[in-house]
């Protein structure tokens, strides 16, 4: 049995791994099979991570975080968690390939997933003009007319990035002000290829086999109109990825995992959560990294208080009493 398993490979997971590895806890990090590195893998330049005055590409930052975690002894597994057993002093993690791992502590840092529009046409048109990854798919929209839905930093970044390829990029936003940081807003406002459509939401996607446009609904007047498009990129936010812990861990009214105050402690002793999965507000690479640090330190503290011998370690009441004593 291991001391600690970290689930998730974004800035929270790898930072937790750096700290846990330096505490000589030999962490096992479950990185997922196809989303290794998390959300930053699909971004371009990251300009707000401290220590990189020239900016750094998202994938490069994640590669460096992984190297740093591995340098101190983190073991990385490229598979998906399919089942979790969190109660009691021995936590069990079952992977897609059938392997099972056990640990005394778990750090859950699975981040968040792109929010969908929630339209019935979405499934069929996904990948046929409807995209969630500007860096992947922008290339296919050279000299085309496209739109980005959303008003946050991701939407501004995608719209600006997509002007490298497209002739025209609309930004469709349901309000008349943006949530994005001022610098990202200004960059979009200054870009001649970008046109904002305010107070509008996508009511329908048009096209049978590929996106040919959208029906927009004015969020103030309710009026509808069609807009011809070759492609639509969706950046309307993210939802915390909690499906594996439903019914196991307490959630907040915002759907994130509930933690105790500024700590990473969930309602189950030995289970800690970090990053976007506990954060409905800030959701930055650097806040996730900070949150990963907190989780690693909380876990280290918890492990230090556990009884030393393996026999004693299987007695849940002892472990939990110790946990209560140190917290």
């Amino acid at each position, binding site marked *: 049995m291991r001391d600690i398993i970290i689930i998730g490979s974004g800035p929270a997971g790898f930072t937790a791994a750096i700290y846990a590895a330096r505490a000589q806890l030999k962490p096992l990090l479950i990185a997922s099979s196809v989303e290794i590195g998390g959300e930053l893998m699909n971004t371009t330049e990251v300009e707000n991570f401290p220590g990189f005055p020239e900016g750094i590409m998202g994938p490069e930052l994640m590669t460096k975080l992984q190297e740093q975690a591995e340098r101190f002894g983190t073991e990385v597994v490229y598979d998906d968690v399919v089942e979790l057993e969190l109660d009691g002093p021995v936590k069990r993690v079952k992977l897609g390939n059938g392997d099972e791992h056990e640990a005394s502590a778990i750090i859950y840092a699975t981040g968040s997933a792109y929010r969908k529009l929630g339209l019935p046409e979405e499934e069929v048109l996904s990948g046929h003009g409807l*995209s969630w990854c500007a*860096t*992947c798919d922008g290339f296919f929209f050279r000299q085309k007319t496209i739109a980005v839905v959303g008003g946050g930093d991701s939407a501004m970044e995608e719209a600006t990035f997509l002007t490298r390829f497209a002739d025209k990029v609309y930004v469709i936003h349901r309000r008349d002000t943006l949530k994005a940081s001022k610098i990202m807003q200004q960059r979009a406002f200054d870009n001649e290829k970008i046109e904002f459509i305010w107070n509008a939401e996508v009511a329908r996607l048009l096209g049978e086999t*590929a996106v040919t446009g959208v029906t927009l609904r004015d969020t103030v007047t309710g009026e509808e109109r069609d807009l011809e498009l070759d492609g639509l990129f969706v950046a309307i936010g993210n939802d915390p990825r909690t499906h594996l812990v439903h019914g196991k861990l307490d959630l907040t009214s915002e759907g994130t995992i509930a933690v105790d105050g500024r700590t990473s402690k969930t309602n189950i002793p030995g289970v800690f959560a970090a990053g976007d999965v506990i954060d409905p507000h800030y959701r930055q690479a650097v806040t996730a990294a900070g949150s990963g640090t907190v989780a690693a330190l909380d876990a280290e503290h918890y492990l230090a208080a556990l009884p030393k011998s393996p026999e004693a370690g299987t007695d849940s009441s002892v472990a939990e009493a110790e946990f209560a004593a140190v917290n």
Partner: protein
Amino acid sequence: MTARAVTEATFDQEVLNNEKAVLVDFWAEWCGPCRAVSPILDQIATEHADKLDIVKLNVDENPGLAMKYQITAIPAFKVFEKGEVVKTVIGAKPKPALEADLAAYIS
């Protein structure tokens, strides 16, 4: 086994005239999910070499074929039988999900 690359020059021979079913992985260097799913395709290729041939097509270097097959999102996987597209799967997926999508061609 690493899936071999095909190009516009070899596509007819390797894909359209292949006697086996062939999965073409439309990918590009800049696409993170494409790189992530690549080792999974290599595993499937190794485990089902008798039934399904798996090849990779770089869309950046072969834009004509990407356009011909109306690729607008990658990674995109198209299974060809006797020169015709019989199955399209879009997006990087875990191995069990991809195997389920491809069940008709690998089991």
